[in-house]
């Protein structure tokens, strides 16, 4: 599948934004956040800023961005519509969380409840994004049990790193957050490697013969319908060279996980937590962007078999 940068930006940025919101809810409940008046509202608005930037980026992918509002209507059947609704709905508790914090402080039950509500909505939104991909049967690298947990883990991972960075600047419980970041990084790395070994061992769902409805026999492509690229080949026939794939996977392990894990674990031990947590978050941001690029580039679509390409 062709990696469209607007979609990659969408899922990476919303991962950071909604991940941060989810952790804000949890940390507030546990009383681990600085109780200055401005901390909550500023961080919540930052998180919403990340999420909105992602959503705005995604509308650049649309052929008719001015009609984007129509995408809310079919929530009964469409995960894309559900994602839009969940994203919009998250704004309500999130703004309530910020306002309640500003007016009555982080510790009163209303603020805590709104914070948890925000967290749940944020995770639901990430889940809807994941389900858009996981529900697409023609793409075996997406339509499997790894996609949903993967998105949630990477969202939680990027969110906690962003929170660590913020806590570093505001003298909060940065070492605690960095510790959680370390653990999530390790879980993320394991999940990513499990995903790769899963898709590498998958057998294609369809063969050229089954695509043509033949139960037996050997089929070879002879003539293509057209000799230049078309929409189907550009969008669905995207292929990544194997040697690039290997290199990029190593890059993801290093930049998305190994560096952030190393930085976060040092920060958790109290070694330059401000600087190292900033490194961890930036490295994870770049690494997860490459991870999303690979998520698309490695994905194959069954329609490509008609053109003699593997799916």
């Amino acid at each position, binding site marked *: 599948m062709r990696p469209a940068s607007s979609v990659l930006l969408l899922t990476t940025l919303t991962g950071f934004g909604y991940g941060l919101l989810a952790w804000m809810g949890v940390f507030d409940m546990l009383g681990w956040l600085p109780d200055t008046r401005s901390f909550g509202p500023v961080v919540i608005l930052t998180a919403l800023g990340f999420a909105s930037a992602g959503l705005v980026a995604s509308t650049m992918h649309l052929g*008719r961005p001015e009609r984007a509002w129509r995408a809310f209507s079919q929530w009964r059947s469409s995960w894309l519509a559900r994602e839009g609704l969940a994203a919009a709905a998250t704004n309500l508790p999130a703004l309530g969380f910020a306002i309640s914090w500003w007016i009555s402080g982080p510790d009163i039950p209303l603020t805590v409840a709104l914070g948890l509500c925000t967290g749940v909505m944020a995770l639901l939104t990430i889940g809807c994004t994941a389900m858009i991909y996981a529900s697409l049967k023609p*793409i075996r690298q997406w339509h499997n049990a790894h996609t949903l947990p993967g998105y949630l883990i990477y969202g939680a991972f990027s969110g906690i790193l962003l929170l660590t960075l913020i806590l570093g600047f505001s003298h909060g419980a940065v070492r605690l957050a960095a510790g959680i970041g370390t653990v999530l990084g390790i879980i993320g790395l394991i999940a990513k490697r499990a995903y790769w070994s899963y898709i590498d061992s998958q057998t294609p769902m369809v063969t050229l013969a089954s695509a043509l409805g033949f139960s037996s*026999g050997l089929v070879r492509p002879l003539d293509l319908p057209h000799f230049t690229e078309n929409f189907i080949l550009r969008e669905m026939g995207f292929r990544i060279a194997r040697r690039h794939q290997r290199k990029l996977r190593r890059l993801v392990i290093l930049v998305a996980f190994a560096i952030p894990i190393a930085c976060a674990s040092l920060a958790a031990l109290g070694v330059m937590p401000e600087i190292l947590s900033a490194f961890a978050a930036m490295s994870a941001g770049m690494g997860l962007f490459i991870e999303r690029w690979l998520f698309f580039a490695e994905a194959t679509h069954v329609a490509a078999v008609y053109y003699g390409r593997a799916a």
Partner: protein
Amino acid sequence: MTSLPHTRTPKKKLGLVIDLDTCVGCHACAVNCKEWNAGGFHAPLPDHDPYGGTPDGVWFNRVHSYELESKDLGCRTVNFPRSCLHCDNPACVTVCPTGASYKRADDGIVLINTDICIGCKLCSWACPYGAREFDEDAGVMKKCTLCIDRIYNEALPEEDRVPACVATCPSHARHFGDFNDPESQVSVLVSERGSMDLMEELGYRPVNKYLPPQRARIEINSFETTESTAEGACSPLLKLLDRLLSR
């Protein structure tokens, strides 16, 4: 509505039967499809650099050619026109966030309302058959309409109320009709010849059916013997000509 129609038994189930035995791969159906639809329901269709080195545009029907080798059939060419199959379980419809993609309850035709499509392309990802093509000029998705602007067109003489691809096929490899009617030509063809769903394992339950290639009814000799008999059967005049021309 992108939820599927609840009527389990729609009045009609319109679709195509394509005979892979007789399709000669001439691309006439693809060309006539483009011709009709460039002025039809989804008009205009993009057509960039049509006479240049890198033509690019939206087509609803594309003809592939394959080589099939099997015990029963030996080795033969199979031409395979690929267009929307108007599936009974079309995920292209249910994934659509706007309601632009829909399946008609009355006749099962899967259509796009390009007035509300936002061009998110998700439906094209959900279609296993590569039947939906994005119109970069208009920013919306387009696809085969089963020629709704012909089959219900009362301005056309009755015999022309069939899809453009069916009307034009020189080897009568394409048939149009109602699969709910057991007497219809398409139902009879399918029950006589048998057919398999394309990518049955994905469960989209395509309505269009493809009739399998058949064993040749005349004896075909292997290449060597054909050549030698051709040589032997040649008239002396042709042999002379051949010798003169091969000098």
